């Protein structure tokens, strides 16, 4: 007797849809997020309730947790002027090649006497291996750098000068004070500090009376 033929069903699951979703998510994240700016080392910044956003074309002073200070000039329009200013004022005698190399660097982190030597190296020195700009009270080289920065911005609207300080949580206050002193020597008393976003604590004065945005 002919047996009832059971139709065979396939156990293959069609994965096309899943694949589509995966690629869509990937495209979304690639297009919607920006490249992180290059970092010297991992820095944990403190958090604050501020809601202002840090602009990207800023002059940033980085303070790492081992008290090293680096300078990064994000504003390419003034970078050349600032570097040439330092070359003149500190008599570094950098050749045009070396000046061009320095301009390409993301981070400046060597004391003046070592700057020429570092630029002449065949393989560029990683920022984490640099010594950092000295900021102690006897030799505050950061003050000279800031002097060059303020010279480059002279005659312009001072709002264009975006001075940022990015410090690690574990850095000591004395290093931060030295950075502030470098600014003070150049009569700069207003600057911004990079922080992580933090929610306003509930019930606090700021939460109850939020400032009116003009």
């Amino acid at each position, binding site marked *: 007797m002919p*047996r009832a*033929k*059971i139709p*065979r*069903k*396939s*156990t*293959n*699951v*069609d*994965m096309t*849809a*899943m694949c*589509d*979703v995966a690629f*869509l*998510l990937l495209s*979304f994240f690639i297009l*919607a*997020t*920006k490249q992180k700016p290059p970092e010297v080392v991992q820095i944990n*910044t*403190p*958090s*604050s*309730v*501020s809601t*202002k*956003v*840090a*602009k990207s074309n800023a002059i940033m002073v980085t303070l790492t947790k081992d008290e090293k200070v680096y300078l990064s000039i994000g504003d390419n329009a003034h970078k050349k002027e600032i570097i040439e200013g330092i070359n003149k004022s500190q008599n570094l005698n950098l050749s045009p090649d070396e000046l061009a190399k320095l301009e390409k660097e993301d981070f400046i982190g060597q004391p003046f006497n070592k700057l020429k030597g570092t630029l002449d190296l065949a393989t560029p020195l990683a920022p984490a291996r640099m010594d950092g700009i000295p900021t102690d009270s006897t030799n505050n080289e950061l003050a000279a750098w800031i002097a060059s920065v303020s010279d480059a911005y002279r005659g312009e609207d001072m709002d264009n000068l975006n001075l*940022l*300080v990015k*410090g*690690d*949580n574990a*850095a*000591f*206050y*004395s*290093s*931060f*004070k030295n950075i502030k002193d470098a600014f*003070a020597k150049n009569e700069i*008393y*207003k*600057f*911004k*500090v*990079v*922080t*992580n*976003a*933090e929610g*306003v*604590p509930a019930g*606090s*004065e*700021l939460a109850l*009376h939020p400032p009116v945005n003009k």
Partner: protein
Amino acid sequence: MAELDTSSGGGHKKGPGVKKSPKKSTKVDLTPMVDLGFLLITFFVFTTTMSQPTAMNLNEPKPDKNNQLEVKQSATLTLLLGKQDKIYYYNGILTDPNSQFKSSNFKDIRQVIVDKKKATPSVDLMYIIKADKTATYKNAIDILDEMTICAVPPGHYAEVDMSAQEATLIHQTEDANGIK
């Protein structure tokens, strides 16, 4: 005639008393999952923004030697930042270290700041912030953030250098409390 039965599981080797179960499909339809996925994505796209590092404004007072800021003793609260996230504070001028010098931490200091703010007329209010050598950058930024959280208007708080007397007091308190 004899036929090769290749149907899977179709082999009806029925033993006595075994019921035949109807064959169910093993094919999974993924359409609802894709719908859920898109719904979640749309939800996140509309309710979040890409997180950017925020920048906190820091206004340093101009050190003008001719125009030292005159403050009423009763209207000042001095906050001293010490080791291990501890804060010491006192009102006015330090005349009697034993009774006036108090210690606190970052959680409780908010209440102290708010109490002082309520008790003083806002014209005279002044918070003086001093940091020890052992205080961290995080402590300094956090205390300035507390000023913003408690809605202390700028110009009513200042960072200054610590005096030697205060530094020794802090060391004594730290030793007494066993803080290394």
